[in-house]
């Protein structure tokens, strides 16, 4: 295929340092290809480069500010990439994509293999496609999706309802908190493998095992990741597990069960709802499509969502 694709650094390529935007993995060389890499190569799609959207893949854990896409935008501008694959587990990338006039295709949880993706928040991690042209994005999705994900058979005209209609409003305020608790808990756990013992960064001077751990992690992790690790350890601790982590998991299930698709196929949201909308799709594992500065979502776009069974 004629396309060229760039990869966010958390997607591993054999023999290439997979820094994951972290000093911790500066010298870590991936020993195998991610499934998406294998699929792209067997479809003759050129992988033209790697770029980083932040430490362990995505910005926006603690702020809405996002300037991560500058490099991607220039890649699109100078035609060195038609699409960028990344893991937007926080929702910050898709929000920024809309502002930058780009599309972001976020497939349903599990439709693209996580094999070879450096994990951040396992229950949300999902490789998505950032692209300038929607059609290109969907064609690339067809290549990287799991073999067993079936295309949707529904072909009728789709009905769209705004978010306010399809999901109970009382939950809106808690989406960010739920996201933060679950993301920090899982992220803290996923980065516990980086301890300076086997691979990755190891501090120079240490006189005990504890010091080796503490110094290596203190020197190599960025501020957001350190904060996430601390909050994660807090919400998973014996005393806080029930009031924080367990409660967040229950609310997540409650929100998923309360979504009402009985009289609609697609839920739409506008820019002012953006902080809760990506969270909704990530908490519920739903596919979503971000379109650039749209004030009105055309039916054709919604059909894409179904036809491609994101």
């Amino acid at each position, binding site marked *: 295929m004629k396309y060229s694709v760039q990869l966010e650094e958390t997607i591993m390529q054999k023999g290439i340092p997979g820094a994951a935007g972290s000093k911790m993995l500066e010298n870590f060389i991936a020993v195998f290809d991610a499934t998406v890499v294998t699929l792209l190569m067997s479809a003759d799609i050129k992988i033209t480069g790697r770029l980083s959207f932040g430490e362990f893949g995505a910005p926006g854990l603690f702020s809405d500010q996002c300037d991560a896409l500058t490099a991607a935008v220039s890649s699109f501008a100078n035609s060195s990439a038609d699409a960028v694959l990344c893991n937007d587990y926080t929702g910050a990338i898709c929000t920024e994509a809309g502002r930058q006039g780009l599309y972001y295709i976020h497939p349903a949880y599990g439709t693209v293999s996580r094999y070879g993706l450096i994990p951040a928040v396992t229950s949300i991690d999902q490789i998505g496609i950032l692209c300038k042209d929607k059609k290109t994005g969907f064609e690339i999705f067809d290549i990287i999706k799991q073999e067993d994900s079936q295309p949707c058979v529904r072909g009728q005209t789709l009905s769209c309802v705004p978010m306010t209609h399809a999901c109970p409003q009382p939950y809106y305020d808690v989406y960010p908190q739920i996201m933060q608790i679950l993301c920090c808990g899982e992220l803290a756990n996923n980065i516990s493998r980086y301890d300076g013992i086997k691979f990755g960064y190891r501090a120079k001077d240490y006189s005990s095992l504890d010091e080796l751990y503490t110094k290596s992690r203190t020197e190599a992790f960025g501020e957001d990741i350190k904060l996430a690790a601390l909050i994660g350890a807090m919400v*998973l601790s*014996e005393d806080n597990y029930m009031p924080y*982590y367990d409660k967040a998991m229950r609310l997540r299930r409650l929100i998923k069960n309360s979504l009402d698709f009985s009289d609609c196929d697609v839920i739409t949201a506008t820019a002012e709802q953006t902080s809760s909308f990506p969270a909704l799709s990530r908490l519920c594992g739903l596919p979503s499509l971000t379109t650039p500065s749209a004030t009105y979502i055309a039916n054709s776009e919604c059909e894409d969502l179904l036809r491609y069974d994101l």
Partner: protein
Amino acid sequence: MTYEVVMGLEVHVELSTNSKLFCSCSAKFGADANENVCPACAGMPGMPAVPNKRAIELGIAAALVTNSEITPVITFDKKNYFYPDLPTGYQITQWFSPICKNGWIDITGKRITLKQIHIEEDAGKLVHEPRSRSTLIDFNRTSVPLIEIVSNPDFETADEVTEYLEKLRLLLTFAGISDCKMQEGSMRCDVNISVREKGSKILGTRTEIKNMNSLKAITRAIEYESQRHIDALETGSEKLVQETRRWDDTIGATFSMREKEEAADYRYFPNPEIMPIHIDNLWIQSVKDTLPEPAHEKFERLTAKLGLPEYDSKIISSSQSLSNIFDGAIKLHNKPKDISNWIMGELLAISKEAGIPDDDICIDTQKFACIIKLVDEGKINRSVGKKVLTEVFEKNIDPEAYIAENCLAMVSDTGLLEAAINEVLAENEKSVLEYKSGSQKVFGFLVGQVMKKTAGKADPRSVNELLRSKLDAD
């Protein structure tokens, strides 16, 4: 004052799977350091954990042989702690929904109740090199599947503990769940121990003893530790604290493991990568169908149904290999008593001579049954039978071909026997005279001479009869 000891056991047993719990590396013991390691079990990022179905089936089997209640939906959870032998920084275990609960195992005069059994992955092994003052890590054992069998505090004596462990070992090895080798670390036992005044309802301060790798070590450790508790209570010589203690077998004492004493918070949470697994009755039944007869039921069958002596039944039913040989042989030659006699007599004698433990005896049951059948049918005599069995045991020869080649078939042709007897009588006139003057002792000698002349192939009974009639007739 009299005291009583209260103990609970945590037994870790490695499951007999081919591959590890969450990757396809070999789970076999004895490979070179770090030979059985892949990116997943080395803790590298980007390798999703996929549970080994066989490990869950062996977990179900463990639930069945311990009379436990199987959990309909099980989960795998993450237990977080930092240690160099744990490459991911977390252990995948079952914290919220273990494979089963509320089982029991009977020992003499007592029922030991089990709190639960859960499946989890093992950690790696640290190898300390004193010369270079460094510590090396071997990840071969990382992610090897284990079950942890947690008992309630139902034990009072070291004898109860060892009997329980023996019984558990039997149940698990018979069902093919684990090979339970304490020396190789595939069965490990931690003892929680406390001492209280007899009759008291309140439990005393509890300590946990680790690092015992034989039943003898466990007995010694329990004796040492309970005495330490009693001394502390009696004399106030030391203040007991709740802690983990390491048994040192050479010194014969327990020592506090201070480095692990910081209050551990393992921050358990459900593993988002592994969906809850449903265990339905169909699956349970299919595991049940593959389970062999448990040792105690085998013992019942051997004694009550087949009428074997209790002693023989116990030896045979408590060894997986002996009971396989027994069951295989009676299918081909339905003489349970004869077969049991051959196992207890000839087979165990031969294997003992070769220094092979009961559990490792390996013999072609078809050939074994064939030899016994030939003896029973009078085709060869028993001592030839033992000789052939030794050949089968050592070289796996074909018994019938071997008998034919070496002309070992029993001589029951009376003409040939008579000729041999006549020769012996002629050559041993002195002994014949002694017999006639009333010495029974020489009769045995004369039988021996006849057997020797027929190269051991004569039917001893016919020799006896013929010889006696000849001597008495003269």
